[in-house]
C-alpha cells in the first residue's frame, strides 16, 4: 500500500515536470503568440494590447505560475483559432481517441501474443518464417502509409475488382455524412467505420508484440521446468498455454504499458487519415493552425495517459506477482 502511494506521488511529480517542460519549450521557441495573432500590418500599440490581454508581458515566473495554476484547475487556456476553452476541445476529442486506442490496444495484445506463441510452438517451420517476415514488414511500415494503402484498397480496389457490398468498408469519419440513426444502428455504423482504423493501429502494434512474445517464450521454453514438464509427458500445447504463458505474463504487462505511447502516436496519423474526430486529429489541426494552447494541452494530456498507463502497469505487476508484495 505504501509502495502504491509512493508510486502515485512519483507519477504526480513526473506530470508536474512534463507540464513545466511543455511551458519551457513553448517559451524557448522564436516569437510568441501575439506575433501569430495579429496581422503583419498591425500597429505597435495593438500588438502591445494583445500581448497584455494574453498576459505575455508579465514576468516569466508569473506566467509560469499562472500556467501551473490553470493546469491544476483544469483550465488550459483558450484556443487561438476558435476562442473555445482548450479543456472543452480536448474533452470532446478524448473519448473518441480512448475508444479507438483501448479497442486497438486489446486487439494488439490478443493478436500479438497469440501469434508470438503460435510461432514459438512452430519455430523454424514455414508458418513461423512467413509470420516473421510479415511481422517484420508490418513493424517497419509507417501507420499513415498503411492507412492510405487500405483506403486505396477499399476505394480504388473495391471498384476495380468489384468487392461485395458488405466488404465495401467506409474509410472516412465516425459515421457516414448523412447518417442520423440512434442507439444500435449508430453503434453498428461506428463499428463499420472503425474497422480500418482499428486494423491499422493494431496490426502494427501486434507485429511488434508478436516478435517480442516469440523471443520471450522461446527463452522460457529453454528453462528447466519446461524440460521437466516435457519429460513428465505434458503435451507441448499445454506447456505453451499453461506454463509458459503464466510465466510470461509479468513481462507482457510491462510491454502492454510500454506499447501505450506507440498506439497513441499511431492514432495521430490514423485519425488524421480516416478523419476521426479524436485527439490526434485535433492535434494535427492545431499544428496546422499554430494553435499553441491546443498543442500544449494535447501534449500534456497525452503524457498524462502514458504516466497513468505506467502506474497502472506497476499496480498490476504487484497484483500478478506475489514476490513483489513486500
Amino acid at each position: 500500500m505504501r509502495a502504491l502511494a509512493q508510486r502515485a506521488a512519483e507519477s504526480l511529480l513526473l506530470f508536474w515536470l512534463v507540464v513545466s517542460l511543455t511551458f519551457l519549450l513553448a517559451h524557448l521557441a522564436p516569437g510568441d503568440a501575439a506575433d501569430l495573432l495579429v496581422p503583419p500590418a498591425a500597429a505597435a500599440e495593438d500588438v502591445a494590447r494583445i500581448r497584455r490581454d494574453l498576459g505575455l508581458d508579465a514576468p516569466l515566473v508569473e506566467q509560469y505560475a499562472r500556467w501551473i495554476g490553470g493546469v491544476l484547475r483544469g483550465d488550459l487556456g483558450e484556443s487561438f483559432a476558435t476562442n473555445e476553452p482548450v479543456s472543452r476541445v480536448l474533452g470532446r476529442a478524448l473519448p473518441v481517441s480512448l475508444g479507438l486506442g483501448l479497442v486497438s490496444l486489446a486487439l494488439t495484445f490478443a493478436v500479438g501474443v497469440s501469434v508470438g506463441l503460435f510461432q514459438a510452438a512452430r519455430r523454424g517451420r514455414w508458418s513461423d518464417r512467413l509470420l516473421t517476415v510479415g511481422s517484420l514488414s508490418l513493424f517497419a511500415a509507417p501507420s499513415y502509409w498503411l492507412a492510405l494503402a487500405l483506403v486505396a484498397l477499399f476505394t480504388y480496389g473495391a471498384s476495380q475488382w468489384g468487392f461485395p457490398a458488405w466488404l465495401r468498408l467506409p474509410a472516412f469519419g465516425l459515421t457516414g455524412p448523412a447518417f442520423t440513426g440512434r442507439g444500435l444502428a449508430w453503434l453498428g455504423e461506428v463499428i463499420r467505420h472503425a474497422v480500418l482504423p482499428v486494423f491499422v493501429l493494431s496490426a502494427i502494434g501486434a507485429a511488434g508484440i508478436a516478435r517480442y512474445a516469440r523471443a520471450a517464450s522461446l527463452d522460457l521454453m529453454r528453462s528447466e521446468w519446461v524440460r521437466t514438464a516435457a519429460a513428465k509427458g505434458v503435451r507441448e500445447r499445454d506447456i505453451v498455454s499453461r506454463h509458459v504463458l503464466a510465466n510470461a505474463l509479468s513481462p507482457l504487462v510491462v510491454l502492454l504499458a510500454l506499447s501505450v505511447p506507440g498506439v497513441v502516436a499511431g492514432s495521430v496519423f490514423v485519425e488524421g487519415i480516416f478523419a476521426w474526430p479524436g485527439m490526434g486529429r485535433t492535434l494535427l489541426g492545431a499544428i496546422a493552425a499554430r494553435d499553441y494552447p491546443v498543442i500544449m494541452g494535447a501534449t500534456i494530456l497525452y503524457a498524462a495517459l502514458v504516466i497513468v498507463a505506467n502506474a497502472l502497469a506497476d499496480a498490476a505487476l504487484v497484483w500478478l506477482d506475489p514476490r513483489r508484495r513486500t
Partner: protein
Amino acid sequence: MARPTSSHVTRAAKWSLGALAALGLAAALIPALATVDPLAIDDVLAARLIPPLARDAHGQWHALGTDRFGRDVFVRMMLAARISLAVGIGGSLLASAMGVAVGALSGWWRGATDRLAMALSDTLQAIPRLILLLLCASLWRPGVTTVLAVLALTGWMGIARLVRAEVMSVSSRSFVDGARVLGVGEWRMLARHVLPNALGPAIVATTLGVGNAILLESGLAFLGLGVQPPSPSWGNMIAGGRDLIVSAPWVALAPGMALIATVLLCNVLGDALRDRLAGETAASLADRA
C-alpha cells in the same frame, strides 16, 4: 536450438548491409544518371499520372509511373532516398552522441548531475516521442536542420540510460581501480578506459534507431513539418500522392514501399548486431565466472 546460430545471424546482417549499400549507391547514381529530371516540371499534360511500366506521350518510359506534375516517381524516390537515409543515419547518430555524453557523465559523476539528467530523461520519456517531435517541430521553422535537432533532442534518453548503467557497472571493475592507482585522471579514465567498454549496447541501439529515425522523419515530412518540397523525401512524396490515392495510388504507395524496405533492412541489421553482441556479452560473462 531455436536461437539463430551465429552463421544465420551474420548471413542476415550481411544481406541487409549489402542491400542497404546497394540502396545508397542507387540513391547516389540513379538521379544523376537518369534521362529525366526528377525536379523539373515540363510537359505536364503529356506526362502526368502515367501508370507504372508505361510510356508517356513523348515515348519516355516510367518504371513506377509519374506524379501529378509528370515527374518520374522512381527517380524522385531515389533522390528522396538520399535525404531520408542521411537524415535517418544523421539523426540517430546525433541522438546517440547526446545520449552517450549524458549517460557517461551521469553514470560517472552520479550525485546531483545524475539526478538532474535522469529527471529530464524521465520527463521527456513520459511524452510519446511522436508527440514531442510534433510539438518541437511545430514550434520551430520546418526544415532538415530542425528535423535533425528534434530527432536528437527526443531520442537521446534510451541510450543515455543504457550507457549510464554500463558506465556504472564498468567503473566498479578492478581495472578501473588499477588505472586510478597508476594516477590516471578522471576525464582520461572516463574517455579511454570506461567508455570504450560501455559502448556495446549503445551501438546496437544506434543501429536500431536508424530505422526509427527514418520513420519519424517521413512522418514529419508527411505532415509538412519536415523536408519541404520541392526537395523530395519519402514522407512528402506520400503526402503529395495522398489525394490521388483513389485515382493514382502508385504515387503514394511506391515511396512507402521503399521506406518499408529500408526500415526493415535497418531493423534486421540492428537485431543481428544485438544478437551477436548479446552472445558475446554472455560468453564473456561465462569466462569471468
